[in-house]
């Protein structure tokens, strides 16, 4: 196990290098932050732009800037935001928990809903509860999340006036963003649980279990669920990654003070350090999740551990 983790960590370093290089390079192609900083403000001369570029360290060649950034990562220093010189690490320290908490709550809602629904659909395969669940999940899947978000705000904040339309203030702030995220997740997960369960239920060992005279519930929860959990764990783990990607839009609509908002603002302001820091931390996070998924495999299915 230790060797396996070591190997994966080594891979992670290369992934981080690639991600940071691409981000650092791509954002520098898309415009000069000095101009963005001065846009709209007074008497701009070429000298002002020079001064600002110098203050931001943009005059240095790309490889120097990039190596400086890598050096910073090693000691946990992502530099300072171009907007007001707040340390990037402080911004991330504030934003990351907000995003993770929202992602976690969304995922939790989705699992709580999709596992029972998926099993129920699989058990009633082809009958009306199955059809109903499948149709609903298709509907859920077809909602664009920003549209759903705006509709929820319209209903709960403006018409009913019971939920705050934006911000992260208390438990009530989580309802709409988490529901928005969970809708699409649940729709996919229900289908996944259903298919995985159906496949397991058609296995011979299930037949054996049944013919041994075990009760339906034991067959379902002890034998079938555990075996069909493997693809689920993989998928849900990977989902966490795409969840973080999809969260950008939801965070923006709900003005959630998380990584998505941070990244979005950093792109609009050409705030290199913030964008680089945010993306690096998110990439690290996704790598970590994948690692955890691999470890979880071993726990669910001891056969994988020995391979």
């Amino acid at each position, binding site marked *: 196990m230790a060797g396996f983790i070591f190997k994966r960590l080594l891979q992670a370093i290369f992934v981080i290098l690639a991600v940071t290089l691409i981000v650092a390079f791509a954002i520098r192609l898309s415009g000069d932050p000095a101009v963005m900083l001065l846009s709209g403000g*007074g008497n701009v001369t070429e000298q002002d732009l020079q001064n600002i570029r110098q203050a931001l360290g943009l005059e240095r060649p790309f490889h120097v800037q990039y190596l400086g950034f890598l050096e910073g990562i090693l000691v946990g220093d992502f530099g300072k935001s171009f907007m007001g010189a707040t340390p990037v690490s*402080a911004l991330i320290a504030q934003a990351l928990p907000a995003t993770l908490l929202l992602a976690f709550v969304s995922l939790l809602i989705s699992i709580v809903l999709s596992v029972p629904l998926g099993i129920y659909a699989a058990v009633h395969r082809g009958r009306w509860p199955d059809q109903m669940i499948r149709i609903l999940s298709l509907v859920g899947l077809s909602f664009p999340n920003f549209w759903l978000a705006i509709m929820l705000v319209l209903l709960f*904040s403006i018409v009913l006036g019971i939920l705050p339309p934006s*911000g992260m203030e208390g438990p009530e702030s989580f309802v709409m963003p988490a529901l928005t995220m969970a809708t699409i997740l649940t729709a996919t997960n229900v289908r996944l649980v259903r298919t995985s369960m159906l496949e397991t239920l058609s296995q011979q060992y299930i037949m054996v279990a049944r013919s041994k005279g075990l009760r339906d519930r034991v067959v379902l929860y002890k034998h079938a669920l555990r075996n069909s959990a493997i693809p689920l764990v993989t998928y849900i783990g990977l989902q966490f990654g795409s969840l973080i990607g999809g969260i950008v839009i939801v965070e923006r*609509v709900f*003005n959630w003070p998380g990584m998505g908002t941070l990244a979005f603002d950093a792109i609009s302001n050409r705030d290199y350090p913030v964008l680089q820091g945010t993306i690096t931390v998110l990439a690290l996070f996704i790598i970590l999740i994948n690692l955890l998924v691999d470890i979880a495999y071993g726990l669910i299915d001891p056969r994988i551990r020995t391979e």
Partner: protein
Amino acid sequence: MKFSTTLKALGLTAAVALAPLMVSKAQAAGTLTVAVAIDPGSWDPIDTFLVDWSSAANNIFDGLTARGADMKLKPGLATSWELMDNNSRIRFKLRENVKFHNGEPFNAAAVKFTFDRLLGEEGKKGPQQSNYTSIDRVEVIDDKTVDFIMKQPDPVLLTKLAGYGAMIVPPKYIQEKGDAHFNLNPVGTGPFKFVEYSPKVSLTLEAFPEHWGGAPKLDKVVTRFISEANTQVAELQSGRLDVATLIPFGLAPTVEKSPNLSLMSITGPTVVSLRLNTKEGITKDVNVRKALIMGIDRDAIIKAVLLGHAKPIASFQSELSFGNDPAMKPLPFDLAQAKKMLQDAKVPAGAPVRIDFRGNDATFREVAQAAAGFLQALGLKPALQPHEPPVLLNDIIPNGKTGEAWHQSWGGWTFDYDNTAYLMYHTGEKWNPYGKDPKLDALLEKQRTVYDVKEREKILQEVARYVADQALELPLYNQNTLYGVNKRVKNFDAPADRRFRFTETTVE
């Protein structure tokens, strides 16, 4: 029937279930909540370039001069000033018994410290220094008197002292705590003092009762950072926000229709034009340029696209701007005359007119489409070319790669035509990639040396008329500043430049 009863029951159940989560809709009495789009990240006056900074920080800091919501200049931390030594020295008498929020006294040394910092190394790192380079240095005469020694004349200086980089900062506090601390924990002499700043979320200020202008009537001002316009409006509608500053024209009717809200639409600083390429294409000919202006119905665009929240302009400035000549009228819309002028200039049918514009500006996209419609009616072949803003501003315009016309949007907080006109029309300036006109250059340079208000105004009006005669641009409109305001807010003096000062404002 049965279905609808079930539905009602379900709705009721949901409402009851969610009731414990109910937000306290009524806001705390005495607290005003404002939303701006961008978190400036630092509250230090010399770090900023954002109007959003001023929307909040104009309550924390004071300048030597001040400007009210009527855009008229009045005394601030200086009670009077006079020009001396052939205008090379300006003497300011400072207000007595003024204290910073931390108890530090305001005096001549604080003024000198502020400007040494702005004009020195620290200021060099920020975007504010360049606005004040006409000042050579500040001399302390006595504790309550300072002299500004000028490097070159700057008639706009008194206005510029009312805001942004010229806001007076506390020397002892900054020297003791350092710049990084000051960025996040600002201290000034203004009517509200800093309480808490949560990056990307909000800034909280509370009343500073010892303010020289009298104690503010509010207890607290909270500024929230919300960059999505729909979200600002939703917050406003749900009663959790008192003033929203990001109201796109499309959302204005929503605010107008809400019973608890009012929409304020006032003259703002932003002017929009189509600048014309005087070097290449059919726009090389001044008569063609005039024909294009006359061929586009600007009033119709204002009415249809901007829903009336703009005014027509004759020159590239707002009617509040110093240098605006109310007697000057824009060329009238006259399609037949425009067609004839194009014929006289021997412009072939289907001649191309390309409009380069900022692709992220949804409103202007519609304006450009409407303008293209009119150009088509003139028998021309318009093409719309959206760009990423940094590409347009940094490459296409300064390097003279534009089509026949390009989108120029501009709004200086000083409301003085000097800055705008100089940057737009002086030879060699970034925003003037094509023009070389010694006569215009001379006028622009001359007004920068004139302190006499009447005389300078006359020169600026001459510049505006000259530009219109040459048809260097197609003046489109002066965009209104829109605020969505909760009706519980009273005595809100909405400023055209969005630099709020909430001393007299109250909430119910």
